[in-house]
């Protein structure tokens, strides 16, 4: 009750103080005393670190690609080809960048689901959660902008379609506002249709803007984790723990090592392109017809197929709701049990997996052949 009677300014000060217990910011607390709970869901504690690891791989391989990549409409595709075919070790670096990006997104999604199920967002960890959801969006932004950079037929057309769906919001807006989405889309593109300006700004967003945003959000995220320690993750009152240093650190690093090994070997043996139904190597041709069955990367399927199948407004409404609920989860689900949260997370994960794996089959079944 006292919190309600407190003046607003003091309540804010208390909120900030509780979220930033800076007295915890010393090696003693962060290294010697830090403990990691051990229970059924302990494996989930590795996900955040793993995502961080893949991010590091992305930064290193991305920097290396930057040595040769040329972000112009006439040279982009050729420079990617040069990297793959003529630069020593270039194919591996590029493959690693592609595979590791997929791995990073997959890990981030698992991290999101598991932390939700474990109610890791409960007070005082709201800021960890909000910064985490922002990071997840940033990661999807990386995916969307990076996809365009090789400037091939599929990527350019997929980007066109993706941006055009922004414009489709216009039909639900009244009067003058109906033109705003078009304005937004052309602002993103930098010109009336996807072209050099789009490539330039997607490149800038991919290699400068989003990395800076990542550093900011990740800074908050990691600092919060350090200040508050690991969340308990289960309902049980007494939980066994193990020391963060050295035991958990060693295991964490082992997981990183295995992950690197797997991604490195996969990148060496299987070109990422081999998973796409069409060769990526065809450069974009502005005069040709749009190729059959253009699709975004697999991690957009969960929103892409609903967009194809359901009325546009329904998808937009649902996405807005889900996104809002995600950001506000610490307050919306403050009193929800972990049991319920797990059920929600499992349902969401099921939806994601079904849409990703069977999305195309569902689409074919519902849409059928030509009418």
């Amino acid at each position: 009750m006292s919190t309600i009677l407190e003046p607003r300014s003091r309540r804010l000060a208390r909120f900030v103080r509780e979220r930033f217990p800076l007295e915890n910011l010393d090696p003693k607390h962060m290294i010697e005393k830090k403990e990691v709970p051990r229970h059924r869901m302990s494996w989930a504690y590795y996900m955040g670190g793993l995502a961080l690891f893949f991010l590091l791989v992305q930064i290193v391989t991305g920097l290396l690609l930057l040595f040769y990549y040329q972000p112009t409409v006439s040279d982009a595709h050729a420079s990617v080809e040069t990297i793959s075919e003529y630069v020593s070790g270039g194919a591996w670096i590029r493959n690693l960048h592609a595979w590791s990006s997929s791995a990073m997104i997959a890990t981030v999604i698992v991290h999101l689901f598991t932390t939700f199920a474990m109610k890791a967002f409960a007070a005082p960890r709201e800021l960890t959660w909000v910064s985490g959801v922002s990071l997840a969006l940033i990661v999807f932004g990386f995916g969307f902008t990076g996809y365009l950079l090789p400037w091939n037929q599929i990527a350019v057309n997929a980007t066109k379609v993706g941006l055009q769906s922004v414009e489709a919001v216009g039909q639900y807006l009244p009067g003058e506002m109906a033109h705003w989405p078009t304005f937004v889309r052309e602002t993103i593109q930098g010109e009336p249709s996807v072209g050099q300006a789009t490539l330039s700004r997607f490149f800038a967003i991919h290699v400068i803007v989003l990395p800076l945003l990542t550093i900011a959000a990740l800074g908050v995220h990691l600092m919060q984790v350090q200040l508050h320690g690991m969340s308990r993750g289960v309902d049980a009152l007494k939980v066994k723990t193990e020391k963060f240093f050295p035991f958990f650190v060693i295991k964490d690093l082992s997981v990183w090592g295995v992950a690197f090994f797997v991604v490195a070997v996969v990148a060496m043996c299987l070109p990422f392109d081999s998973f796409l139904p069409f060769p990526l190597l065809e450069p974009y041709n502005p005069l040709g017809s749009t190729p059959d069955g253009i699709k975004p990367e697999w991690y957009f399927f969960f929103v892409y197929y609903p967009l194809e199948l359901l009325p546009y407004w329904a998808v937009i409404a649902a996405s807005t709701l889900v996104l809002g609920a995600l950001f506000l989860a610490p307050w919306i689900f403050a009193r929800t049990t972990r049991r319920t949260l797990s059920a929600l997370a499992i349902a969401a994960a099921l939806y994601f997996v079904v849409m990703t794996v069977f999305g195309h089959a569902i689409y074919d079944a519902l849409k059928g052949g030509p009418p």
Partner: protein
Amino acid sequence: MESQLLVFLLVGLPYMAVLGCIAGSIWRYRTSRFSYSALSSQFLEDKALILGSMPWHLGIFTVLAGHAVAFLIPRVWAGFVSNQTFLWTVEAIGLGASLLALVGLGTLLVRRLTNGRVQAVTTSIDIVVLGLLLAQVVLGILVAVQHSFGSVWATGTVAPYLWSLATLQPNPALVRDLPPLVQGHMALAWILILLVPFSRLVHIFSIPIGYLWRAPQIVVWANPRRFQGVEAVLIPARRYFLRGAAAVSVGGALLAAGTAGTFGRFFFGPRPSEKEQTKLDEQKLARLRQTQRQKELSVERSQKRYIRIAKVKELDAKKGRYFIDYEMRAALAFMGEDGLPLLISAKCTHLGCTVGSELDAAGRILCPCHVSYFDVKTGVPNQGAPAKDPLPHIAWVMMDEKGDVVASRGGDGRAHGTIDPAKAALCDVYIAKKEESSS
């Protein structure tokens, strides 16, 4: 005579070995269940054991897994190994693993033959099995070296042969002409399978998988004399950490050293051969020309009142010609049923994809992105299509060689002017700037 022996080795022996293995296993399990494993000698000697057993088991497990995959899913596998990088990787891993197995097996053999304590529990069948395994691994390595890329050729020979055995329709012809080295490797494999229930190899059937997640147990010599004068040693966590860190650094250093050549040259940059450079330059020129063409088109559209699309006789009723309209968007030119050109926008009214250029039987154009069919005559999409608005027709002007307007069609779709088919064929089709066509 020789062929009879070969048939026995390729057909008789396999069935004998498998039946013997099954029958023998049942017999051993029923008569002496507690011996249904390998007799541990870890507390008799543990240093050489770890140096031998670990490499051996890691190596042979990898190699056997490779064999199993190629035999179980030969077609899928053949698809994988058709990728050269994958093939080389598999071959290198296989050879590396078999060398690892060889080293481990050698260590185990030396240990079993020279260590007094281990000798005390060694039976003759142990030696036989070790010797045969050694021979088998050496044969395998020889096969891999002499007749390389077994992962490819085995999918068409050994794999179908094994399937023919498994389906009780033995077809030895599949492997009859393989080199003797390979046939020897196969025969020895059957003999080893036969020996499984009668030797320590039986532990293959009693792999203690539970060890992976049970609490660690350390086998110790319980005799108190062993501990006389030795103080209990507490290994601090720090030492484990340092050891782990050292192992990671050494591994990292090895990795760096191994890949230094490749990644050093990454920064050195590509040095294509003259031929490759020419190819790259040509490619680059082509792309530059494409970019230049785009610019030219847009300049042309801002300056000219009319833009030529094609000769009338070049137009086809079924297959449209792509061109770029005044708004720099793709459009299509057909020959209409009335013998007049039919120009229609190719930018799908749904999400802006470029529609296909060929008409289907019903005279419709398909947008491949979200499957909308547009009637070419009206531009209207089919019922239930994602696109709601029709593709707009584009106004055109027909001019003869002298530049005189012969016929035209406005934005309203009505044609003006007279059309003489014979003369029309000589004319060119143009699109006109907006203010012109509306008149």
